[in-house]
Each structure stands twice: as C-alpha cells, then as structure tokens.
C-alpha cells in the first residue's frame, strides 16, 4: 500500500504532470495526422509479382521454372546488380510491370552536362545503362509492361510505348470481354520480310536434318536417317514442346491472350537496321484509344476532331544484340506491351480456380486455350540453353525476377528494399561513390578535428600574482620641484608647523631652520639640476632629517 501512495505522490509532482501533458499533446497530434493521412494514403495494389499466388501474380510461371530445375532469384533493390551476374549469357531478367517510380539521385553523365540531377520515371539512367550492359554481355531481358514506368527503358533500345489502350474488334476473347485481346503471330521467327524463318536460332526448334528430333537431342543433327527416341525428361527445358503423344511441337506461331494491353508506336516498333523486329501485332481492326474514352473515335479532320489511331500495332517486339539473334550468346530483349501476359489467370488458368474476370466477379470462367505458357517457356529455353549438347540448363543458369518496382504488401518491406537500393546505389554508381567518399572523408576530418577526448585530470598549483604600483610616477619623483616639495614638507613636519604657519614663514627664518647652504640654494634657486646634483641633494636631505629629528630614516 505504501508503494501506491508513493506512486500517487510521484504522479502528482510537477514533472509528472508536465510529462503527461507532453504525452497527451503528441498523442493528439499523431491521431490528427493519422486521420488526415488515412484519407490520402491508398493501400498499395500488389500484383504481377513472381512470388504471389493471386490470379494476377506470376507464381505459376515461377513454379514452372523451378520445376524444370532452374534457379530463380528476385531482385528487390536495383537492376544495378545485374553487373554482378557471373554468366549473363545464361541469365534472363524478367520485368513484369514497372509500377513504381524511382528516387531521383544525381549522377555523372560523362558528357558536357557533367551532372544530371533529375531522373526519368521508372528506372534511373544508371539502371537502364546497367540493363543495357547486361544485354550486351549476352543476357536476355523480358519486359512486359503497358502503362507503367518502363518507357525510358524501351526508349534506350529505340522503342516507344504509345501509352494508350489497345482495342481489337477483330481479335478479342469474346467469352472474356474486349479487355482480352488476342495477339496472334503465324511465325514468330520471321524477323524481317525477307529473312524467312529463323527458327533454327531456337534450340527447341532447331532441326537441321528435319528428322523430327531437335539437334540438341539428335546424335547426328545433320543426318536425317539417324535420330533418337526422345522422352519428356530428355526434353529438359523444351519439355513444353513435347506432347503427350510423343510428338514434338515445331510450330512457330503463338496465340497470345493479353489483358488490357497497350501497343508500341508504329514508327519505332520495326527497324531491322537497329535489330528491332515486330513479332506480334494486333489485327487491322485494332485501334489505340488515343483520347482514352474507351470507345472508338473516328476522326474528322475538317471538324478538328482527332480520331483513334487505327491498327495494326506491334504488341510484341524482339530486339537482338547481334543481327537476327543468330548467336546463341547474343543478348536479346523481348518487349511486350502488356504487363499481365504471364499472370496466373492467363498462364495457367487451371491453377487459379475461380477467378474474377477483370476483377470483382467470383464467377468461374473457363479460359480459352492460349500459347502464353509455350511462348514464355520458349523464351526461357532460348535464353538459358547455350550449350548445343544439352536441353538441361547448366548450374550457371539463372532467372531473375525484378521485384524492385512492385508494391510490397508487408509493412517494412518497402523500407527493407529501399535500404538495399541505397546501399547498391552508393556502391555502384560513380557519382554516388564519389559523394560517399567525400562524405566519409569529411566525417573523418570532422571527427579528427572536432572530437576531443576528455582531458586528463591533474592538480595545478597556481598562485602567481603581482600587484604593481603606478610606474608613471617614478619619473615625476626625480624632478627637482618634487624633491623641493618633499624637503619643504620635511622641514615643516620636523618643526611642527602648520601649513599656514609655514607659508607665512619669512625666508630668513626658513634659511635658519635649514641651516644648510646647499639645501638653501636648492630651495631658493629654480634652475636645472643634473642628476648627480640631485642625488647629492637627496643625501643631504636624508642626513638633515636624521640629524635634526633623531627619528630613524
């Protein structure tokens, strides 16, 4: 009980009351700020992640890759890390939706601008250059995005996003709605109008002797009479081309189902000189909703009404580092103007179960057959199979999913990723490294200069002190008039005269009192005296005082 009384006493002290007031203030402020922020902060929509299992995630795709024995990794910080990949020719970097902007940090440009302070959206310039370098080293990039922040990355390879929604009245999934557009290509390996089929660049399609067995598995790839019996396990990364009947699928076309796609600009989508090939296109009945009203708008130039742009538009573009992607180690970029091409609902609808078509509905809808999975696995196989002798990926093969531009569902997930981002930025970007060095140097100097250790204690005995008189008076006391004054005072004191009496004293009487001719002359003569004369006079004055008064001088 005593403790409660003590406690209550403590709580009523002034300090406790003050603490309580401060606490109440901050709590109220927090409540007010939270209630305001709640209006403006919107929960992040997490989708298109390879590690999610929602209908709009890519979990099934990743699981498929893992089942094929290929290692998958996630990149949560920055594509700057791509420079650390040891074997980029056996790596594929998959970007599915660039949902978030980047932090603008300054960087050296290496040109006349020297420093660039603001960055474009999506990826930073350094990251784009890192991706480009990755491709140049033989890496493969699969970029699937429609209305996200990947335009800068595409621009680096000369490709422009239209930024508008694509509708195709001639080719859409009727059972699903106009949002689901078919992109069909009869031959995905006819890169140019006169190149013919280049399916031989794909290890799962390369059969030079046309004996129905791909060259990787063919003991004699050039001898049609010699082939081998191929099982599904032999197929390795090409297993998706192996049918249950034992037949091999050599088709080169794809029927890709997209969900609310966009398209690339016509002008930049196809440029064989720059090794950019438009593979998948929409139909002639397609149009870009340039005014974003959701309807086809026919333009009337005379009335100044701009109509929606008419198709066909490239939705799938392939870029090759080497001409026509002939070299197996050549870098490649697959651009698709739809970020949700490989979502679970489209990739493997059976694994999703009931899914909401367009979001919201829980009605189970049967998905049409698509080649999305085949197409994706073809890209994986083309990227990872560099050896001409095996359909299995080597131990160096790696599939990297870019998770750095996706919203995180966890509270501190974004913070964790940001931490990595900053760390990688400051250790990879030259400008940042320079800034870091400078900062570290300044901090080190600041510590050396400003930080002081506590002084060692020691007792110091210190009492030196001098009190000085007025040294200016010394000179005055050497003057004859002062000496004369002192003499006269002496005479007066010793004769016990008052001032008035002394002043009234006749000169003769004074002379008689002094009774010293030298001193008498000194009193009455006003002239200049030499120092030794004055010394003599002073001596006589001292003598005179002693003799007359008997007082010790």
């Amino acid at each position, binding site marked *: 009980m005593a403790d409660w009384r003590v406690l209550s006493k403590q709580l009523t002290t002034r300090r406790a009351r003050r603490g309580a007031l401060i606490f109440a203030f901050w709590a109220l402020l927090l409540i007010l700020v939270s209630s305001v922020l709640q209006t403006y902060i919107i929960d992040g929509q997490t989708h298109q992640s390879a590690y*999610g299992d929602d209908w709009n995630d890519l979990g099934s795709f990743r699981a498929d890759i893992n089942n094929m024995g290929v290692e998958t990794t996630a990149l949560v910080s920055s594509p700057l890390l791509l420079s*650390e990949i040891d074997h980029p020719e056996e790596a594929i970097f998959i970007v599915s939706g660039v949902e978030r902007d980047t932090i603008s940090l300054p960087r050296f440009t290496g040109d006349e601008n020297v420093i660039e302070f603001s960055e474009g959206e999506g990826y930073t310039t350094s990251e784009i250059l890192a991706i480009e370098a990755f491709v140049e080293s033989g890496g493969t990039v699969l970029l699937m995005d429609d209305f996200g922040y990947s335009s800068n990355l595409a621009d680096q390879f000369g490709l422009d996003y239209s930024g508008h929604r694509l509708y195709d009245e001639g080719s859409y999934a009727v059972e699903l709605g106009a949002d689901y557009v078919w992109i069909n290509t009869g031959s995905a390996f006819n890169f140019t109008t006169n190149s013919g089929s280049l399916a031989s660049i794909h290890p799962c399609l390369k059969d030079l002797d046309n004996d129905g067995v791909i060259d990787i598995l063919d003991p004699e790839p050039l001898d049609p009479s010699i082939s081998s019996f191929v099982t599904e396990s032999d197929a390795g990364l090409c297993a998706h081309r192996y049918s249950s009947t034992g037949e091999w699928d050599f088709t080169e076309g794809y029927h890709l189902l997209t969900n609310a796609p966009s398209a690339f600009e016509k002008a930049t989508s196809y440029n064989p000189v720059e090794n950019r090939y438009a593979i998948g296109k929409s139909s002639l009945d397609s149009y870009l909703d340039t005014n974003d009203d959701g309807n086809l708008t026919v333009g009337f130039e005379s009335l100044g009404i701009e109509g929606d742009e008419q198709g066909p538009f490239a939705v799938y573009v392939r870029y090759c580092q080497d001409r026509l992607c002939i070299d197996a180690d050549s870098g490649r970029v697959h651009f698709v103007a739809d970020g949700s091409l490989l979502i679970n609902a489209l990739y493997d609808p059976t694994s999703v179960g009931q899914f909401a078509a367009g979001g919201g509905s829980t009605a189970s809808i049967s998905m049409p057959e698509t080649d999305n999975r085949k197409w994706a696995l073809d890209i994986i196989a083309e990227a990872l199979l560099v050896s001409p002798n095996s359909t299995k990926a080597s131990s160096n093969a790696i599939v990297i999913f870019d998770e750095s531009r996706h919203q*995180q569902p*966890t509270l501190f997930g974004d913070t964790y990723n940001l931490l*990595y981002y900053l760390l990688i930025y400051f250790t990879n970007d030259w400008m940042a490294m320079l800034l870091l060095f400078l900062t570290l140097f300044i901090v080190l100097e600041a510590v050396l200069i400003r930080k002081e250790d506590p002084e060692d204690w020691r007792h110091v005995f210190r009492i030196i002190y001098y009190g000085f008189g007025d040294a200016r008076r010394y000179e005055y006391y050497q003057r004859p008039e002062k000496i004369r004054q002192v003499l006269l005072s002496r005479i007066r004191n010793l004769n016990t005269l008052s001032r008035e009496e002394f002043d009234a004293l006749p000169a003769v009487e004074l002379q008689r009192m002094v009774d010293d001719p030298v001193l008498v002359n000194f009193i009455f003569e006003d002239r200049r005296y030499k120092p030794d004369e004055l010394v003599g006079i002073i001596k006589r004055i001292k003598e005179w005082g002693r003799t007359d008064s008997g007082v010790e001088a």
Partner: protein
Amino acid sequence: MEAVPDSQTLHIPKLRRRWQVLLLQLISTASLLMVMKRMNVVFGSCTEEFIEDSGGIESTYWCPAYEHTRGLNYWQSSGSVELILPDFLHGLTDFAGEPLTGDATFVGPLALCIAVTVAWVFLLHQSEKIQTWVNRAVSIGFVAWMLLPFLMSWIYAMVINGPHVPWHPAANHLDLLWTPFMFIFEMVFLGIVFAPVLAGLMGIWGLSRRMITWAVGYFLMVVGIHAMLTFEGITEAVDVGLQPLPAQIGDATLYGGLVSPLALVLLQIALLILVFMESGLAVITHLEYASMLPEDAKRNPEYVIQFRNVINSHIVHLVGIMTVVGLTTAIALEFDDFLISLVGFLEQGQWSGQVRESLELQLTYGKVISAGLFLLVVAGMRFVLPWQRVTGIIETGMSRFRSTD
C-alpha cells in the same frame, strides 16, 4: 601507512617485470607475428597466369605480394646485385647455404628485427647524451660508408694511374657511391613484410604508441592496396599479378557451420590486428598512469591494489571481449542464412518469398545488411540483458563465500 614490498611498487622498472605487463606485451607480440604470418598466406602469392608469363614456377619472378624472398631473389638476379646482408638474415638460405622455404624464411629477418628492437630499447634507457651520440654515429657512419670507399678507391687509383675523374670509363668509381642506396633498396624489399613487424616490436617493447598505430595503419594499407590492385576494374587495365581473394566467401563448414575457411582466415587477421593494437596500447596507458604518480603514491598499498585490479580487469576484458567479438563477427557473416530461414518461417507471403530468393542476399550486399542488422541487435542487447548485474551478484556471492571460509 603500510608500505608495500619494493618489488610491488609502481615504479616503472618494477612494473615492466610484472607478470600482467609482460603477458600483455607477449600477447601483443604473438598477435603481431601471427598477423604477419596470416597475411603472408592470404596476400603473399601471385596469380598462376602471371607465373606462367614470367617463366614458370621455377623462374625468378616478383609481384607486389606480401612476401619478401621473391623480391630479394628478383632484385638479386635481375640487376646482378650482391645483397649486402647475408642470405640467412634475409631468410633466403640457412647457415649452410641451403635455400629455405615456408615458415623458415621468417626466422632470419625476425631475429634481425628482434635484435634491432633490443638495441633500440636499450638505447632508450641511456642518457640523452648517449642517444644523441649514437644517432650522430649512425648518420655519420652511413655517410662515411657512402663516401669513404669511393674516395679511397679514387685516390688510390689516382696514385697508381695518375689524376683522373671519378667517372673515367676505365675506372668508374661512382658505382661505390650507390652501395648504401642498394642497401636501402634491399631493406625496402625486406621491409614490405617486416617494417610493420619491426615497428610493432619497437612500439610494444619500447612503449611507443605511435609505432603501434603506424604498424596497424601499415597492415590496413597493405590490405587496401591489395584490394585495389586486384579489383577487376584495375586488373583489366593493369595486371600486376597479385592473387585476388576468392569471389565467394564460401560455405560455413567449420566449427559446426559457424564460419567458412576463407572467412575464418580473414577474420583472424582483423581480430589479431585488434588484439595486437589493444594489448600493446594497454601497457603504455597503464605505465603512463603509473609514471604520473608521485613517489609516495607509488608505494601506497591502496594505489598498488587498485593498479593491480585495473590491469587484471584489462586482461580479462581483452580475452573475453575479443572472444565475443570473434564469435559475433562470425555469426554476423552467416546471419544472412539465418535471416532467410527466419523470414521464410515467420511469413509465407510474397515478400518473404522475394527475400528468400533475393539476389542481394546471395551477393555481399545481403551479407552486409544482415550483418549490420545483427550487430544492431547485439548492440541493443545491452538494454535487455542485465548481465553486469548478474556477474556482480555472482562476484558478491563468491567473495562472501570466501570470507566465510
């Protein structure tokens, strides 16, 4: 006031013979030598490609590695230079002239370092006059060594052959001027490895803070220069043949999965540098305090007892804390694995999947972040674990137990 026995007073000559002081100095010396040895193992070899290009393993080659015999042999053979110090002092051969390899190459130079240290410490105890005299003798001796042979040779030649300039084609006496500089170059090659050892020994036994910190700085500088010269960006332009550290730190296979072999060696180097520095500086700090005390305090039992307490606790702290630091750093290096497992265990969602498979965790970034997180937790544990109170209670109980005996 009771007086303590003469051997227990806090006078510097007595303290230097105290077992605590000697122990600290010996720990420091042992650490110094072990650092040298470990660094020689890690940073003392050239790349195979460089060796091949230089003519194979049997040829005489040199790369700026942390090793002394290669450089001396290279110096000797390439310029047809005679080494001034005998080969056994360099560690190249034994007394019989048989070439030495491995740890045996360190014996000669170490003996030389120890001899120099002993001489230097002895000189420090002499009067200032003698020190000045010795300094002057060494300087003058060096200059005389440079000039006297040259002058005598030239004068003698002039007596025999008549006056001529020293650089006469027939009798070039100038070469004799370079002998001391050759000696300096020889010392440079030896000093690459043994300069910090000598400085460290002189700092430990000569009680010089500056020398100890110089030695530590030198070791860190060697590590830094090695890192720079083996950096991929540099080796693409200029490859000096240094063997780089492995790109991956390796799997933790030692001590029950605590640390990988590479990490253990690197950790040992860092830890030994710390031990060398701290134990060497400890002696200096305590002796400085003792020297500051007045004569009567040096004999005061209170001061003697407390000095003993302080230095004993320093030794206990040194051993205990360094052990814990080694363990903590080893765990920090492997904490990324634990973090992945923990994240996977706690949450099966999207983010945990990303973290588990993240590229960052497989590279050094993950190691650094996870190690940093771990060290933050370790630092924060001081507010959680009242371990000092616990040890205090144990100590109180033990002293009470002893007093009741």
